[in-house]
């Protein structure tokens, strides 16, 4: 079974440029997450989708970040324009969540390492 697939693996851009990350979750997983991980720290949630609906985007900096999950499968995360402080690893994760259940484990992709120069 394929795991969570992310692309690109690395991205180097200049500040003020746009950038997009793509994620393909594990087949059948209805919940998808985007996390940002700064160097030496744990991941921080940016947005969580249940199927096509963004159910938790309270941590997403909406002035420059946007995300979509068309058809409830693949997802893209976009930054426009990028700033120096956006340099980080962007991790996508997925899980299969049953309504009312609170014991789901997440499956992570390898991440996209973004460097903004």
């Amino acid at each position, binding site marked *: 079974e394929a795991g*969570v697939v992310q692309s690109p693996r690395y991205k180097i851009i200049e500040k003020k440029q746009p950038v997009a990350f793509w994620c393909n979750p594990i087949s059948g997983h209805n*919940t998808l997450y985007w*996390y940002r991980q700064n160097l*030496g*720290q*744990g*991941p*921080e*949630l940016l947005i*969580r989708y*249940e199927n096509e609906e963004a*159910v*938790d985007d309270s941590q997403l900096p909406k002035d420059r970040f946007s995300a979509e999950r068309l058809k409830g499968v693949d997802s893209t995360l976009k930054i426009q324009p990028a700033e120096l402080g956006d340099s980080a690893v962007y*991790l996508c*994760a997925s*899980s299969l*969540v049953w*309504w*009312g*259940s*609170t*014991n*789901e*484990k*997440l*499956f*992570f*992709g*390898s*991440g996209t*390492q973004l460097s903004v120069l």
Partner: protein
Amino acid sequence: SQQGEEDPQALSIQEGENATMNCSYKTSINNLQWYRQNSGRGLVHLILIRSNEREKHSGRLRVTLDTSKKSSSLLITASRAADTASYFCATDASPEGGSRLTFGEGTQLTVNP
């Protein structure tokens, strides 16, 4: 914001020794999970312990949970060089179900051969 705090930040041991990492958190939780992250890779789920459980085992891993102290520990017995990685605790405090994991800053474990 980070809910969990791991201790120590870094741990270096010899192969065959046991490694213990601790995690403290601030709010009531549904469950607590431990993940491992090898350098340059994504996180891999290790073990989940529910709020009504006190101890759980999986292979060489032993996790304890003390909800009165809001703390957890991860013990890796008979460590191997391949256990070298960062270890993160993550707490799920979402009231409505589903997972909204909040990760700590991690413990960097180095196992020397």
